[in-house]
């Protein structure tokens, strides 16, 4: 059960006010938090709970819901061999979150990618530039309201239509 997870117990003791939801699905524990203390939470997970490897940073766009974005951190502990997923809520009106590059330097490029493809700003990031798209690109392709075929083009209707 998610409540017995070692990280969840400690996180609930320390950051009770920040935790929005704890969920378990297929044996994977996901903790959803508010974005304000994300750096402290990540720092705590790394130093106290030995989640030393930041596997991935990405985001999910829930267009039409509030908060619209969830920034997803998949973290792993090499000594304990377990995973944890932390998700931080980011609203469309204040589309920014603090960077965790100070905690894991892996976050540098991964956050740049989220910035590029989702348009979420990472405060205090050392080098926040687009990474996959060109510097003069307009829009953020992985947002749900960005058309698949690209902006200002007729939607693709299939070969036979």
């Amino acid at each position, binding site marked *: 059960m998610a409540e017995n997870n070692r990280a969840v117990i400690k996180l609930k003791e320390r950051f009770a006010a920040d935790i929005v939801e704890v969920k378990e699905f297929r044996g994977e524990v996901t903790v959803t938090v508010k974005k304000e203390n994300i750096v402290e939470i990540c720092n705590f997970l790394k130093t106290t709970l030995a989640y030393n490897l930041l596997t991935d940073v990405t985001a999910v766009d829930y267009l039409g819901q509030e908060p619209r974005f969830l920034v997803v951190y998949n973290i792993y502990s090499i000594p304990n061999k377990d995973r944890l997923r932390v998700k931080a809520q980011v609203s469309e009106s204040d589309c920014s979150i603090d960077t965790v590059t100070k905690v894991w330097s892996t976050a540098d490029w991964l956050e740049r990618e989220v910035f590029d493809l989702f348009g979420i700003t990472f405060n205090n990031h050392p080098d926040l530039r687009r990474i996959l798209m060109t510097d003069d690109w307009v829009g953020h*392709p992985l947002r749900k309201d960005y058309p698949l075929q690209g902006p200002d083009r007729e939607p693709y209707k299939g070969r036979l239509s």
Partner: protein
Amino acid sequence: MANKETMTVNMGPQHPSTHGVLRLVIELDGEIIEKVTPHIGYLHRGVEKLSEHRTYHQTIPLTDRLDYLAPMSNNLGYVLAVEKLLGLQIPERAETVRVILAELTRLKSHLVWIACHALDIGAMTVFIYAFREREKIMELYEKISGARMTSNYFRVGGLSSDVYPGFEKDVQEIIDTFPGYIDTYEGLLTKNTIWLQRTIGNGIISAEDAIDAGITGPALRGSGVDWDLRRDNPYTGYEKYSFKVPVGEKCDTFDRYKVRLIEMREAIKIVSQALKNLKPGPILADAPQVVYPSKESTYNSIEGLIHHFKIASEGFPVPEGEVYQGVEAPKGELGYYIVSDGGNKPYRMRVRPPSFVNLSAIEKMAKGAMIADLVAVIGTLDIVLGEIDR
């Protein structure tokens, strides 16, 4: 007063030693590298965006094109993630065939690594030998899936078809001959003075820095971190096989070279254990709403045809939820993070590419090195741009 002005040199995007369309902007003080800034994205095809508009089965061929040197590993990670979402158990025969092919893929990918890495440093013979041997695995790929590189062989729930008659014999031949080939590469390189001078002490990154930078796979093990997903978080039946996880000590290019060579030998051991384990049986899970019916039933019965048509056109619904599945791909931890909203297409599919994160450490590894050693650092990271740019 010495002149402190640096010189900026552009390497790539069209450069034989950058293993694809990678552009590096290098700031040089004489021949010493002050700063490397990689520019990527030239090969961006929007795989993640595309997959949101395709059914779960239609995304499998997209994954072939990520790390095109190890397509079966990509297929494996993706189908495992979808199976995890569905909570699907797959039959033992399919698991065993997957392990055999995943390990042969590792062998194939490492052959390209050793070939290109050696060629970059100036040892051309190894390149020609390794590509000759790689052809044998490509032929097996072609026989089994119909394609030499973009295999698209694994399916959600199992395999697209059973292995061809004579598969065991072909795999056995690889098991018998490859240790000798690896001896040849070692003979050409391990005691070669030029090779040693170019690799020992090159691209040093400590275990702590490597973890902090998120490096995974053989590059991390070369820095002395004893961690392998196949052993520590086993998937698709890896817990049944015994194999060693090689670990380096000196954190340099030479140790990463040794680690990868041992990994190739261990991959052969896993393949030979798996081949003994290969028993006749079904190759698809018993889940008619997810897996395709047999070709016989599709061609000979109306129910089978409708069934096939329904899965091909509509796909299958997947329960709401989110999973992350990491596999030990030849280049490091390849992860798929899939969010499902209960429909027949992924709401969000994220690929965690090992090369992308490994490449981000290049700044740290190449700083202070000579410009000629930069190609050795790129080679030892074993990057592939199809996966970095997605």
